[in-house]
């Protein structure tokens, strides 16, 4: 069994060199996060993850959460670990200082989230949802609501959840039917919510649900949905948990993965209606939810990266210890560990190269998230926001789709043992499987990318990004990747052609664009990853000239970047052809003829 080791060197390289830590720490409100502090935070988080969270991962997968008499018990060890997590202050990493948080920028918080997700995804979904609730209340909650809920959610004494989905309202939230009827200073909530991650559990003394519901005279569709705080225990006047609210967990789901995290069906108002408090104005609930969407979607993209990294570490250890066969071409001599076999090496490198490329892109987006909030210049904030909006569906969609493939390669490296649960490789594949689904499926991400992002602004931001990519590509001329430069050029050309096709087709034929939106998203991710790896290679070759350079790390970075250029980038022109020429065949077969 492998033990998780946070890839702190690669994380710091991506944070400092590729995402631009110094630009983020120059922003007002982000000054504290200097390079030394970031390194220390990552080291300590890595230790905690290795010693406390990683050891819970397998057992919680086998055991799962349990429901009895409406109460959910988390897997063994989770409660104690949560206690430690909260006591060590990790829950408040990105929280507001006035609520007891540390106020560290996303460029620090997101890598730390990656660490938790690598060690035990089921566990850290809880704190991640809490931070989503905090973000919503910070932006849209009243002062009283913030004072009442935010300090306890920041410390982790209380947890938070998001209640969007209902049986008839999945990707299409306009179909939400949960009712909210005003009564004095509050509302009475009635309805059923499904797929509520950590909707009920025994880790914390109270759970704060954010619930989408309709008021009595609300208009139909998305413009008639409001957002409510519905606490498990209604706070008393002194802020302490009081009366048990009318919310019941009626079942928890049997799932393909993330078994340690209870996915709940919550029944609101079986008796007289659950007490809820409206957040912000009536009928603007969905809009409020979407203000946190960038953050939440990047978070799920990171989960993909985290599982890819963990699957890689697990497969690497197996490949370094499993002895099987001799070196290819040798008939005698010692048997060797399978990492000596070229195809195993290819698989390991494909895992490593993609994971590093994905990490770089996600951290780059995390820096944009900070800059779009804190940059003093409004025009720059708008540009950063536009770039972030463009890259968010790419990070979410591409990183999670690749994560499934990477975790699957991890299984493959284990051979027959990979298919056996005891080897531990399969869990990462099963856990990764949800990441392309929740917080918007890959199809939803791709529609967002081609519609609201590329199509709506005639490709302006995408084409600006492509220009930046060309700038990097031109620098490869004399550098370490000179002979792989053509691969990057072809890939960028493909992305540009496909983007122009999308821009051109979107106003005329949105259906055709939707038919090839997922290949376009993958193309976008693949080329963006190549751009990041090319930047990494240029920086690594510069750093190698310094006398105290970390040669092993930097040379591995160069080799990995080359692998990406030669094995991943050639997929881009093919994806571009699929985008430009593939729509008609998708729509050619009538639904009735299937």
């Amino acid at each position, binding site marked *: 069994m492998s033990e998780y*080791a946070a890839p*702190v*060197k690669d994380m710091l390289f991506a944070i400092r060199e590729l995402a631009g830590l110094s630009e983020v720490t120059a922003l007002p409100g982000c000054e*504290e996060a200097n390079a*030394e*502090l970031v*390194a*220390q*935070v990552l*080291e*300590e988080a890595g*230790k*905690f993850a290795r*010693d*406390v969270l990683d050891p819970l991962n397998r057992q919680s997968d086998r055991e799962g959460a349990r429901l009895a008499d409406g109460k959910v018990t988390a897997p063994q060890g989770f409660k104690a670990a949560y206690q*430690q997590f909260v*006591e*060590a*202050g*990790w829950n*408040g*990493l990105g929280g507001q200082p006035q609520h007891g948080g*540390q106020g560290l920028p996303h460029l620090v918080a997101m890598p730390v989230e990656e660490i938790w997700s690598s060690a035990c995804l089921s566990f850290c979904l809880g704190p991640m949802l809490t931070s989503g609730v905090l973000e919503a209340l910070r932006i849209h909650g009243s002062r009283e609501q913030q004072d009442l809920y935010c300090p306890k959610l920041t410390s982790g004494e209380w947890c938070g959840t998001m209640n969007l989905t209902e049986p008839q309202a999945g990707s299409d939230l306009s179909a939400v039917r949960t009712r909210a009827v005003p009564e004095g200073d509050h509302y009475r909530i009635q309805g059923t919510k499904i797929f509520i991650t950590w909707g009920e559990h025994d880790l914390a003394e109270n759970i704060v649900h954010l619930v989408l519901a309709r008021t009595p005279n609300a208009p139909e569709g998305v413009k008639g949905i409001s957002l409510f705080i519905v606490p498990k225990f209604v706070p008393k006047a002194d802020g302490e948990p009081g009366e048990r609210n009318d919310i019941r967990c009626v079942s928890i789901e049997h799932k393909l993965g993330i078994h340690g995290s209870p996915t709940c069906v919550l029944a609101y108002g079986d008796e007289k209606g659950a007490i809820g408090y409206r957040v912000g104005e009536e009928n603007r609930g969905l809009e409020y939810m979407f203000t946190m969407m960038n953050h939440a979607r990047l978070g799920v993209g990171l989960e993909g990266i985290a599982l890819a990294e963990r699957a890689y570490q697990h497969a690497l250890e197996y490949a370094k210890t499993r002895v099987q066969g001799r070196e290819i071409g040798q008939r005698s001599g010692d048997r060797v560990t399978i990492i000596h076999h070229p195809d195993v090496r290819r698989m390991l490198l494909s895992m490593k190269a993609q994971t590093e490329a994905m990490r770089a892109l996600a951290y780059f987006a995390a820096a944009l998230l900070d800059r779009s909030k804190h940059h003093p210049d409004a025009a720059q904030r708008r540009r950063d926001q536009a770039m972030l909006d463009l890259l968010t569906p790419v990070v979410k969609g591409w990183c999670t789709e690749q994560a499934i493939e990477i975790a699957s390669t991890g299984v493959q490296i284990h051979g027959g043992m990979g298919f056996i649960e005891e080897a531990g490789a399969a869990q990462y594949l099963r856990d990764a499987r949800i990441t392309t689904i929740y917080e918007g499926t890959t199809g939803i991400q791709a529609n967002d990318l081609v519609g609201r992002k590329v199509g709506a602004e005639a490709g302006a931001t995408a084409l600006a990004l492509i220009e930046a990519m060309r700038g990097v590509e031109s620098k490869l001329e004399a550098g370490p990747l000179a002979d792989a430069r053509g691969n990057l050029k072809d890939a960028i050309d493909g992305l540009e052609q496909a983007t122009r096709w999308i821009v051109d087709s979107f106003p005329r034929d949105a259906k055709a664009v939707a038919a090839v939106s997922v290949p376009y998203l993958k193309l976008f991710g693949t080329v963006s990853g190549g751009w990041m790896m090319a930047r990494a290679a240029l920086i690594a070759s510069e750093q190698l000239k310094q006398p*105290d*350079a*970390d*040669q*092993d*790390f930097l040379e591995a970075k160069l080799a990995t970047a080359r692998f990406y250029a030669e094995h991943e980038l050639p997929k881009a022109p093919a994806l571009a052809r699929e985008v430009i020429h593939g729509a008609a065949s998708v729509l050619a077969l009538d639904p009735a003829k299937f």
Partner: protein
Amino acid sequence: MKVLVSVKRVIDPYVKVRVKSDGSGVETANVKMAMNPFCEIAMEQAVRMKEAGVVSEIVAVSVGTTQSQETLRTAMAMGADRGILVEADADVQPLAVAKVMKAIVEKESPRLVIMGKQAIDDDSNQSGQMLAALLGWAQVAFASKIEINGDNADCTREIDGGLEKIAAKLPAVVTADLRLNEPRYVTLPNIMKAKKKPLETIKPDALGVDVAPRLTTLKVEEPAKRGAGVKVADVAELVAKLKNEAKVL
């Protein structure tokens, strides 16, 4: 009561150590470093004593390169009030460490010095004992329990075949063994606070200490690989082999 705790920056215990190709030492360039685990235990002990109200101030001291500042920051995140780095480039050997510590003790006047029993890099297990001798203080090495009662440090130490209880008159030097405590995880708020705690850097010259090495390392090499074992037919053969081949009986 003021306590001085020494902390050393060593190769992270989770890292596989590699010998340099020229045999001059082990590879430390760009290797992940961490606080020596026994120093962590010493630090934890001081923090627990402060939490119990026995100790009023904890000063962490490190002797080493500029990067040892990171180790001192960790010590301060664990609970040290301030840090002192005695900056020395070369390989600082146990006697030099003891002399530096003596100078710091004279400057700071603590009543108790807690050190790790040894550092996991060269496993010398000497600095604490040497410091006590140089100061003419009581010493307790390999402590698995420390309790301050009036003018005494009542300590339990691990010895071959059992535990020994010693009442050491303060001021004293105590070195921490593995079972003294289990160090805590550093908390995030404390990492943030540690940034603002004072960290003083001084040179050995300023303390009047010569840290030049007195021992020369001739060669460092990996231990020979263990050969394959053999099966013996019976006890008699085993005894014979132990006598004649291994020569241990």
